[in-house]
């Protein structure tokens, strides 16, 4: 409880606050490789946890033994070179990988302590709680209003017209796009600019009342100003949602995230390139004092 209030206070002044709480932990841990795997067990349980997660495409192992613990009301960034499997990991967190017929996830992914890969868990229900924003803005080719309300309706929203209007306004307000679109809610979502479209997609994702929002390189198709707006928006949304973002932009990870996971590619003996989690630490620490040599090489540009 006290933790929460501190956070709220800190959030107002600066977003660097929350990272200080977990930063007290690492010194207590041994500094060898096996410790990385056991580390999450020491931390308090997060909103999403992965335990020994392996992801395969057919017989190809794309990601090996990922253990992550994403905390409530934090922004976590996944970074790493192309092909390291960070997007694969992100998509496996709300079972979007199920859409790829050959994809297979092993290990455990828990959401509020419940394994989302357990038999009997419907991925549709998972995705409602763990929303997603994609690399390229992909609004539905429908009106702005319909873009927001559709997700709510198919998830059983039964409110009146006025309540629906409220829901749409609320989602658009939260996504900081309300002022720009409030007079043209019936216009097509495709009539907006790229940055606006992406904020519309964020509004659409949060309209179904998730508590985690996954973002897969949400700014890679946007110009720097639109990127800045999305980043500001993420810092706003952190108060109500946990955000996990994949980014190629290390500055972006450093600017917005509380914790950062660095993935790297490991070449197996057969020449297979498998992604591996190298370290997952508070962002400040990762960029100033990385524990691993590979991380340091990557963030200083000496990689590969």
């Amino acid at each position, binding site marked *: 409880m006290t933790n929460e209030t501190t956070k709220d206070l800190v959030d107002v002044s600066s977003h660097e606050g929350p990272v200080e709480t977990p930063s007290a932990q690492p010194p207590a841990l041994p500094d060898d490789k096996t410790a990385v795997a056991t580390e999450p067990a020491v931390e308090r349980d997060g909103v999403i946890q992965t335990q020994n997660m392996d992801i395969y495409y057919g017989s190809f192992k794309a990601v090996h033994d990922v253990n992550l613990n994403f905390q409530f009301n934090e922004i976590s960034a996944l970074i790493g070179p192309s092909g390291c499997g960070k997007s694969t990991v992100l998509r496996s967190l*709300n079972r*979007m990988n199920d*859409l790829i*017929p050959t994809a297979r996830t092993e290990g455990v992914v828990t959401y509020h302590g419940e394994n989302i890969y357990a038999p009997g868990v419907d991925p*549709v*229900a998972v*995705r*409602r*709680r763990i*929303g*997603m924003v*994609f690399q*390229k803005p*992909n*609004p*539905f*080719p*429908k*009106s702005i209003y*319909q873009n927001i309300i*559709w*997700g709510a309706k*198919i*998830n059983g929203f039964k409110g009146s017209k006025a309540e629906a209007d409220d829901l749409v306004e609320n989602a658009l307000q939260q996504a900081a796009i309300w002022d720009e679109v409030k007079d043209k809610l019936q*216009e*097509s979502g*495709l*009539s907006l600019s790229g940055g606006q479209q992406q904020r519309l*997609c964020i509004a*659409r*994702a949060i*309209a*179904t009342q998730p508590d985690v929002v996954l973002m897969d390189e949400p700014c890679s198709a946007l110009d720097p100003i639109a990127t800045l707006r999305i980043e500001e928006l993420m810092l706003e949304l952190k108060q109500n949602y946990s955000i996990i973002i994949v980014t190629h932009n290390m500055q972006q990870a450093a600017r917005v995230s509380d914790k950062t996971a660095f993935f790297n590619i490991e070449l197996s003996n057969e020449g297979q390139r498998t992604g591996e989690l190298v370290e997952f630490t508070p962002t400040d620490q990762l960029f100033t004092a990385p524990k691993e040599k590979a991380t340091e090489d990557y963030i200083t540009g000496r990689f590969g």
Partner: protein
Amino acid sequence: MSVEAPERLEIQEHFPTDAEYDKLLGKKNRKGLIAKMFFMAALATAVLALAALLYTIVNESFGLVAQVNQNEPEDIVASFGYDPSTTALADLSYDELVESLGGGISTNVGRRLEREQRFYADKLVFESDELWAEICSSDEPPAGCDSSPRDHAGVLQLVNERIVQPDIIAAANLVPSLLDPQAFEEDVEVTFANTPERFPDYTFDQVQFQWRAWLNPTFLVTPQSTAPETTGIRTAILGTLWLVIITITFAVPVGVGAAIYLEEFARPSRFNDFVQTNINNLAGVPSIIYGMLGLAIFVRALEALTSGAIFGIEQANGRTVLSAGLTMGLLTLPVVIISSQEALRAVPNSLRQAGLGVGATKWQTVRSQVLPVAIPGILTGVILALARAIGETAPLILVGAASFITADPTGPFSKFTALPIQIFQWTALPQFEWQHLAAAASLTLLILLLILNAGAVILRNRYSRRPQ
């Protein structure tokens, strides 16, 4: 290119010099030009072929005819005391038409006509009241007993058929009629002079030369008849429309459904690959094979259904418009499936991810997001299917379209004929009039196709323009 790289790399030696390159450029452009000319020639060939087709049909559909009337309409009009130069046959009143009809046909023919359909609701023209009461109280009263009386247009047609009795003895095509009408008249005159035995009943003085549009409003709304001068294609048009309605009703839901399953739900498997390959092959199966299939399945095996027997409709066999429509449905199914699949495949995957990402099921995503985007493409397939259903002849012959039928199709269990069947029948007849009628029917078929396609295109454009 005057700017020269300061240090030429070894590899650049393998590229042409500037002079050589200019030559190469000219060669490249010439090759492009030749290719372009070929493509233009290809297009020109296609346009020429279409133009030739249209020319032939239109040419035969209009033109001068040499006609002999048994009784001149002017005489009929004059017999009622009107001025033939200001009054036409059609301007006569109903009573006058009936009177002229009565004056020109035998009582027996009149009685037969009256038994088919009476002339007045309150009085009889040809029958006596006692006999009429007797035949109407018999076990099988004729249709005239309880149907409504004939109308003005009906009697006018009767007068034309029975009294005027036009006989077309020669006809010219449109272009010769326009260029040299005199030549046609001289031709007919020469024929009369040289071979009078060909027209024993007429003299050349009786022959009237006049313009005739073989495709005219009367032709469109008149049922089929054995006399080429008075026949029409109403039964065939209605048959074709019924056929199209049944085909589309069957092929579109089934075809689109199958496409949605294959594209959106089916996981890649050997079985699905097998199904897909077969659908692709079915699109190329000759239509006569589908006709045999329709004959075996719909006409024979499912006769109880297609004859309407299970709905209590008495019908001798399954050779109904329903059988033909379902056969056409099967025939067009592969086209609908394949084009719907293409349309669904063209919908960006990001849209599906967006739908699933907000917690929609696959079906919700397909119905609300994917399908609306795919509809214009699906309608393209429907247009193709429509065109095929209208034009196919072979399967209709096999499933038993009637070659001569005067009754309009009234429902899916009716016997029917269709425009292509009609055209096929008429072109096989030896008399020259039927060739012109076949051309007129072909023109009608093309116009009908154009109208139906325009409807589908308008629908498609509306869907693709709508922002929702």
